[in-house]
């Protein structure tokens, strides 16, 4: 399936690069439907990889790359359901999305996240599975999960630990603050900064460059420098589920979902 147009995302192969476009309003919140379509993409990826040397993940929405997990769905999942069943549902969701993230992380082609605007939580984690992050000047990154009494659940902590210094990870995680591209580049997260609206163009130019190299060599180099932290990823799911089962988390999610004020994204 070389081309696909879904409700939350679409993909096509353009000049030897797979372009995976996110387009679920309002800001690519990742819930069950997005997960279903990400699984379809992961299943199609081995076939697509035969025809492409790179993957670009980007968003077509003005608000940003992705605001992260669909917290409304996460909250509603726990309503009217026995606690054990709700927790099993959350664990199953996490295991499924980890499976997709791990497949993207280990994909035998060069992967590029072209991000702009809000790149928060699960959206940040999706960018982190990519080999290279190219950010629009107005991109903003954040792990806000601790505000809800949770930790990032889509593989964010192990991948940040793999890619950045532990002190940086503690700062981002424990303060829950958002930060801009200058900071992101300074800490080694973002490799290139593009002007407003130019991240996809810069990503395409980068994809064209990586396409000049022998595919097998590039895949071997990637596998050598980018190990998948499987054990820590499993541990992350356990910790998330331990934390999720507390009443404080339900209250935090309720507060977010029911907040009609102008500042839900501010800490």
């Amino acid at each position: 399936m070389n081309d696909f147009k879904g409700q939350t995302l679409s993909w096509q192969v353009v000049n030897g690069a797979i372009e995976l476009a996110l387009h679920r309003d309002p800001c690519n919140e990742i819930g069950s439907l997005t997960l279903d379509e990400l699984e379809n993409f992961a299943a199609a990826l081995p076939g697509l990889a035969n025809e492409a040397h790179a993957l670009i993940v980007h968003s077509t929405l003005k608000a940003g790359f992705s605001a992260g997990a669909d917290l409304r769905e996460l909250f509603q999942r726990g309503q009217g359901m026995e606690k054990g069943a709700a927790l099993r549902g959350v664990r199953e969701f996490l295991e499924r999305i980890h499976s997709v993230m791990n497949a993207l992380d280990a994909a035998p082609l060069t992967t590029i996240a072209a991000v702009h605007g809000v790149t928060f939580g699960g959206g940040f984690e999706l960018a982190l599975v990519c080999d290279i992050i190219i950010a629009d000047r107005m991109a903003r990154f954040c792990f806000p999960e601790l505000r809800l009494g949770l930790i990032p659940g889509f593989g964010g902590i192990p991948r940040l630990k793999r890619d950045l210094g532990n002190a940086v990870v503690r700062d981002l995680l424990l303060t829950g603050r958002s930060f801009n591209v200058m900071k992101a580049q300074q800490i080694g997260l973002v490799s290139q900064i593009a002007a407003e609206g130019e991240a996809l163009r810069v990503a395409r130019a980068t994809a064209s460059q990586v396409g000049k190299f022998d595919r097998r060599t590039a895949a071997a180099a990637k596998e050598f420098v980018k190990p998948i932290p499987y054990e820590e990823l499993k541990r992350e799911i356990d910790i998330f589920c331990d934390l999720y089962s507390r009443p404080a988390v339900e209250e935090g999610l309720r507060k977010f979902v029911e907040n009609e004020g102008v500042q839900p994204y501010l800490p």
Partner: protein
Amino acid sequence: MPATDHTLDQILDLAATHFKVPREKLSADDDFFKTLGIDSLQALDLLTRLEHHFSIELPDYELQGVSDFRTLANRIQARL
């Protein structure tokens, strides 16, 4: 002009330009959410533009409960 007033002027200029609001309609004690008609995501956009303009890093938790330009200018001034 005191430093904070100069900072405040720059904030008002930037907000007026970016959100296409007449500069003369903005004043220091305005609630910028109301005056600019912005939500929290657009407030983050404003924060990012201000960080770039002043070449500073202003953690968003310092903006918790801040909604007027004068207090925003004070927060920025403390980082210059």
